[in-house]
């Protein structure tokens, strides 16, 4: 199934991706973000926070936003 993945890490990235049916948010995060820790991200599906075992649906919009971003001076 296809869903919109928005990753706000680094330069930002938004595109449609294919995932298997029954994929949970936790699995999706592990697949896309590798060694990043889920607790360092605000994970939302369709603009709403979801539990880690939420099963993704067709056309869902998954947004990952780091909770720690280093500013400068």
């Amino acid at each position: 199934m296809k869903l919109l993945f928005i990753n706000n890490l680094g330069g930002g990235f938004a595109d449609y991706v294919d995932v298997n049916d029954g994929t949970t948010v936790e699995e999706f995060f592990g697949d896309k973000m590798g060694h990043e820790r889920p607790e360092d991200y605000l994970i939302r599906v369709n603009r709403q926070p979801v539990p880690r075992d939420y099963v993704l649906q067709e056309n869902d919009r998954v947004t990952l936003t780091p909770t720690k971003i280093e500013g400068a001076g």
Partner: protein
Amino acid sequence: MNDKELVRVAGTIQDALEQLRKHRYTRCAAQLSLFAGTMQKLIRDSRRLATGLSRDWFAAAERSCMTINRQLGEIPFLVSNLQSLLDRRHRDVPSLSAIAAELWALQQEFDDVEFNGEEDALCVVTEPITLEDTYLGRFRVALYLGSLRELYQKTPYFVMAVDPHPAATDYAVTHPHVTNDVLCEGDGAAAIRAALETGRLVDFFTMVRSILTTYNPDSPYVALSDWEGVSCYECGYVMDSESSYYCTYCENAICDECSSVCAGCSEIVCKSCAGTCEICDSSLCPQCAKKQCSECESVCCESCLDDGLCPVCKEERDKHEEEQGTENNQEPTTGQEATVVGGRLADGGQRAHGNYAALQPHGMGQAPLLPGQVRQ
């Protein structure tokens, strides 16, 4: 915001994003026009060059070459500007319902969301922020929709401290990464711009919050370790640690004004510890201030002491010696020296200057009292 207001604000944001899109195309057209104008000038000058050559007008040909060279130099800059504008990915302006959904989600994410009609700004207030035990308070993030169309030229949002707790050394710095209400986005710059371009308001405000709640010790306007500043022990002036000095003796922090360098050993000393040379007024550390004139006991720096005497005492001694020498020269000589040379000084008395041994009036009761000697 109630539903009616929410839809109205969504419409305003959509208009702003349309303007941003139009502004990008307008800038592309302007840059393209500049580029095309330069190319036309090149064509014109190449014709002039050909005409000059056909008639052997070398001076005119040289002028054409110089003009062409200058125009060629402008082309890379124009092309670079144009490419950076054209390279930007096309961003669809989101639908009204999508923006409304963003606004609705924004209200779920933040407790304090409002649209300020006077400022034409969508505002969010953060929770109180504390970084490494330094309380910074709450911040109001205001996105000015009127400025959104100029996103590529200037920042359309400002971050203002609600209850400011600025750095002691710079009141404009209300957060290690905020100065004059402008956030230095650092690692978040590109993602924030992308979020604004596509009307992802929740992403924009949450990323700003993520920067505000993160401290980057490698690149702050004012480091948190210096947030309260360092107070000068002498005058109380608050400074950052890089601007402060420390007294070598009492080890208290002092400002530039209250510090002085010892003229003797170059150590830094505070006003309280510093002594002063009574002759030249230069500062001295407690150690160097122990040096005194052996005659009058005034504190003297090394450079003012001569033979252990201050300049005043030295002058007096020299004067005294000179007078003594003159007196001895005029009086009949007695003693050993006179005996040796048969009652007269061999060099007519001039040798007496600077040679006390030659002038000792043994047994005459006229021994001169030299500086530093104690009368018995």
